[in-house]
């Protein structure tokens, strides 16, 4: 059973009801997807390349709207929300990408502080918090380094720190270990597990690294040609 101890009583953190997604006039990349992620759950999303993993995550972190169906986050239906409300909802979601998406002209410290600057906080307000988080991901000594001077693993840990600085309720990671070596991959996953246990953050990670999935024993959502073929709640790993 799910050893990550989700809250089974409250509203799902993520709920997709009969969701389909189509880009322009192309075929549907997701068809009639139904999933529910409980608050505090830890879920893997897997499937072959082109199965629709990234598209599904984009719906969850509000980068796209579904062509059909409903996306609900933290009990709120996102379809009718105003732009300001969507922005507020995005602040409750941390996103980690395979290609890190760090801002090259900002230091490690400034990259992590970015979501707090968006909120209008001043450096004096977030200095200690950012430094603590950088130390937690093992970058305490690289605070003033620019991203291009960091290794792939360091850049990924930096992007994780940026995703976590707002203490998100939901962390979405799209192939977070795709650009790092296996050892660093495990280290990054341990960070996610620790985060899930310490802060009860709901986590969904897209990966095709079956070794890591086996090692961490979390439930798996499997996508195939845009369809969910293995459901998290009914077939836990």
């Amino acid at each position, binding site marked *: 059973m799910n050893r990550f101890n989700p809250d089974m009583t409250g509203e799902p953190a993520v709920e997709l009801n009969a969701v389909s997604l189509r880009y322009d006039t192309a075929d549907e990349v997701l068809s009639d997807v139904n999933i529910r992620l409980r608050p505090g759950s830890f879920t893997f999303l897997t499937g072959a390349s082109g199965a629709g993993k990234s598209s599904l995550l984009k719906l969850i972190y509000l980068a796209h709207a579904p062509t059909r169906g409903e996306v609900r986050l933290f009990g709120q239906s996102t379809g009718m929300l105003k732009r300001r409300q969507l922005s507020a909802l995005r602040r409750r979601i941390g996103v980690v990408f395979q290609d890190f998406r760090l801002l090259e002209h900002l230091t490690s410290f*400034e990259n992590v502080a970015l979501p707090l600057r968006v909120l209008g906080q001043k450096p004096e307000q977030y200095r200690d918090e950012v430094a603590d988080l950088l130390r937690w991901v093992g970058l305490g000594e690289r605070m003033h380094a620019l991203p291009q001077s960091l290794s792939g693993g360091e850049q990924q840990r930096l992007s994780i720190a940026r995703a976590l600085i707002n203490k998100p309720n939901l962390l979405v990671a799209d192939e977070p270990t795709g650009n790092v070596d296996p050892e660093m991959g495990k280290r990054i996953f341990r960070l996610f597990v620790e985060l899930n246990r310490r802060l009860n953050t709901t986590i969904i990670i897209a990966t095709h690294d079956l070794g890591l999935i086996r090692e961490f024993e979390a439930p798996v959502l499997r996508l195939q040609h845009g369809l969910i073929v293995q459901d998290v709640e009914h077939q836990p790993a």
Partner: protein
Amino acid sequence: MPKPTPLLPESDAREAALFFVVAALCFLAVLATLTARGTYTAARAWSAQVEGEMTVRLSDTDRRGAEEAATIIRGMSGVRSADVLSQEDLERLLEPSFGPGGIPAGVPMPLLIAVETAPNSVTTALAITNALTAQGFNAVAESHADYAAEARSALGTLRVAAIGIVVLLTATAIAVIAFATHAALLARKDIVDVLHLAGAEDRFIAQLFERRFWTLGLKAGAAGSVAALAATALIIFSAQSSASQNQLLPQLSLDFWDLVILAVTPIAAGLAARLAAGGTVNHALKAVL
């Protein structure tokens, strides 16, 4: 704690090119405005000067007859002065046509009387012609205001054209800035995406671009204004160095309002740049979720 690095990277080559374009457009706009204003001011001063001036041409009479005609004119209501022009006056008047050698012998020259009337005088050129004709003179009086009216009409057209040029240059500047902002937005899409996903509202992202382009517009406008000021000063200097041009454009100088235009242009350029950038970014952001 050091000052945070701006979220948008420092300007690049594209912005340098945009700076030049905005500065050049501001330079042309200011120059067009100053030229239009200067010309209009000079024309208005010249019109005011010739208002109430007339010239009476007398044929078939001698200088004594001309003096009698001048006396008749002086007796008319509202006439301030009526003076028969001497041969020297005539030669000076016609020097641009005949040169410094004077009027060639044998050229039939009428006698001229320069008349000046009080403002709002009822005595018209026609009234003077009629009065002199009634006394047996072969005389024709012409009001200088007739020429001034034609000049005013031509200058009015020039002014409308200048306003059109300024409007066109302003619209071009705004369009160029909007285009450049769009390009900058595409070039900085990575930053915009990260900010967007970090929960930044459209306003926050738009303000980054607005601030960047406000500064650029302000600096480019200032550069254009200073260049236009230098060009205007050069034109004035050249005009004042040349006696003939000095006579043609006696009022060509920078006044308070010209300086206001020079001072306001950078602010207007900055505001236009800011508005264009803000509108472009907001429009682009609305296209994404």
